[in-house]
């Protein structure tokens, strides 16, 4: 099979992957937003019993988890784009990106703690 080595050397695929993941995660979040909005309108507002009931429901927990993971991926692609545009020195940009990655992983841990932790 003949491949063009220059394509692989510059990793021409990761931009496409980011482009797609940004859109897939956006659709996931938009659908979840509709779901939560619908639930709130259905109940005519949010009191504690509705709120607690939602977070006791395993399907809602999984939907929320999916939303949060989509959010963290989406935030990563977006913030990395901002860093690539404005933070020119490579070292600083790397530092910013590492801080962002650590924050997002910590947020993912916090999300699991909230959804399935023993409160």
């Amino acid at each position, binding site marked *: 099979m003949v491949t063009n080595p220059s394509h692989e050397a510059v990793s021409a695929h990761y931009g496409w992957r980011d482009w797609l993941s940004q*859109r897939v995660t*956006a*659709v996931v*979040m*938009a659908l979840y*937003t509709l779901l939560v909005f619908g639930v709130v309108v259905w109940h005519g507002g949010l009191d*504690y019993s509705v*709120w*607690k009931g939602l*977070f006791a429901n395993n399907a809602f927990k999984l939907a929320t988890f999916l939303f949060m993971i989509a*959010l963290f991926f989406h*935030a990563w692609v*977006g*913030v990395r784009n*901002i860093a690539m545009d404005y933070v020119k020195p490579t070292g600083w940009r790397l530092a910013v990106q590492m801080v*962002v990655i650590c924050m997002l992983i910590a*947020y993912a841990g*916090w*999300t699991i*703690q*909230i959804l399935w932790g023993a*409160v």
Partner: protein
Amino acid sequence: MAASGLTIMAVLERRIVKPRPVYLNLLEIRQPLPAIVSILHRISGALLFLVGIPVLLWGVHVSVASPEAFAQWKSVMAQPLWKLVALALAWAYIHHLLAGLRHLALDVHVGVELAPARRSSAIVLVLSLLLTIIVAVRLW
């Protein structure tokens, strides 16, 4: 061959002698509406990452624990400063969502011509402000 080479040389030299004017005073350039929606998309995204995610996680964490915690969270959110934070985040979320939906439409080649692109960016700006006003009315 030699002639075209000379032409290229001439063009290159001209560029060096006479550079194109660059005017990048962002405060004085009148930005077109799609550009305003675009930069607000970026600003709202940054705001949602820096403030939105931690406030969202904190809010869910403290409010879901017990009826007392829920009531306490509600009283905290009733403070004017927190209302402003919630309102700013509501605008950021709504604008980011609507501008994102516009982006998805553009991706599938819907509304890419100049006039519809301008119209949809105006709709995004106005609709997100209107929805934010509705949120503000409900908050106060």
